[in-house]
């Protein structure tokens, strides 16, 4: 069978993954502390083609492509002022740590609130960890000293959803916490829209390849060897 068919099909599948990723980024254009991810497209492997008569090299043939990785872009985004005392933003590197039922998770979204005991918690009720690893208590006036909220360096960061990340804590982060601020979403709308369009055109080109190869195959099956 014609390997071109599978190569073009793998290209279509990869573009569809890219479209899923782009949709997610556009959906999170206003999510505080959101980090967008890139995508690395890799070939499955390559064959070296030789001319069967002369033995001369023709060149390489790729066997198709896939999105192999989606690396996170952890560049800090600008903070914007909200005036809400329980909104926090990290100026610089580092993550807030949150004690969830599944273990400690990390976030850059500092939209916090309190629980009935006066601890700083996320909107889903998970405790935010202080610089010393314990809970952060609200002061009598309902505010929190920005310095008492912990910022941690995290390695091996992976997205989990709910604005949370998994990873390994590696000491205190260098970023400074500011109360009354939130970090903006890391989605660059203009860039993502452009990527959406170009990916869509690649998808169309892959589809055209499949159709053309399909026509070639039906030509070989239907016309070659026909008697009249």
């Amino acid at each position: 069978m014609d390997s071109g068919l599978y190569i073009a099909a793998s290209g279509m599948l990869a573009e569809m993954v890219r479209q899923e990723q782009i949709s997610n980024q556009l959906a999170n254009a206003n999510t505080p502390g959101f980090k967008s991810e890139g995508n690395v497209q890799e070939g499955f492997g390559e064959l070296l083609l030789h001319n069967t008569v002369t033995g001369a090299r023709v060149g390489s043939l790729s066997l198709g492509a896939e999105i192999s990785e989606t690396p996170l872009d952890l560049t800090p985004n600008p903070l914007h002022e909200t005036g809400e005392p329980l909104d926090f933003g990290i100026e610089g590197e580092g993550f807030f740590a949150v004690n969830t039922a599944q273990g400690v998770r990390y976030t850059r979204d500092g939209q916090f609130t309190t629980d009935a005991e006066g601890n700083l918690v996320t909107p889903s009720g998970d405790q935010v960890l202080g610089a010393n690893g314990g809970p952060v208590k609200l002061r009598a006036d309902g505010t929190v000293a920005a310095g008492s909220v912990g910022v941690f360096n995290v390695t091996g960061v992976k997205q989990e959803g709910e604005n949370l990340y998994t990873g390994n804590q590696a000491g205190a982060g260098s970023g400074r916490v500011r109360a009354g601020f939130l970090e903006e979403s890391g989605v660059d709308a203009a860039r993502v829209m452009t990527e959406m369009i170009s990916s869509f055109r690649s998808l169309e080109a892959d589809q055209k390849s499949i159709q053309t190869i399909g026509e070639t195959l039906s030509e070989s099956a239907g016309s070659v060897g026909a008697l009249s």
Partner: protein
Amino acid sequence: MVGALTTAAAGMEAQQNWMDSLSNDIANVSTTGYKSQRVGFRSLLYQAPGRGAGEGAVTGAGSAAEIIGENFEQGSLEQTGRSLDVALTTPGFIRVRTPAGATALTRAGNLQVSADGQLRTAGGDALDPPVQIPRGIDEEKLSIAPDGTVSAGKRKVGQISLVEVTNPNGLQPDGEGTWVPTAASGPIREARGARLQQGSLESSNVDLANVMTNLSEAQQGYELAGKAVTTQDEVLAVANGLIR
């Protein structure tokens, strides 16, 4: 692969929720004691997309937005000169009892004397404990001290109960300018530091300029997610176009 379509649609819904909340804030820009809403955005679950991707790749399922409480920042004070208008100048609430008998909290201090001589809020809730104004007393002559003591001349006729909770964000708004305590807010306790100012009302703390900026951001976000929905529809059309 229909995933991309629902992902984009989730984004539209999240922005829509934000716009709904902002519209509510705009509608209450002149509601006494109103507190603007806080809307929280969150990303949804990340998973391996399956075919077309390797093991190192994940895609997210869009976003969601919910009201996560209210911004209890002090609203500005408006001088009215009316003796039964009181404004809280500190955090805290006035404790009231709804006609149904439930305890509720409010910051809307435009009080009035009802036909039965009781001090009530504009919404018809009685103060809790009730304050009965004796007959024949001119309500213009009533004085309300910063700690909530109501007196007619030198005679104390009642006490406006000023209270607080540990977590105001856990209070349940009931849409009538009052909040109902919940397990998340913690129990009601006396607010010793709370202060009232007679002859003033606390304005809504909605900052219109801020709301308008947010509204335009929400609209932009809605459009972006909308564009994604349209494109994902076209992506599926291209896939379907493989078989003619």
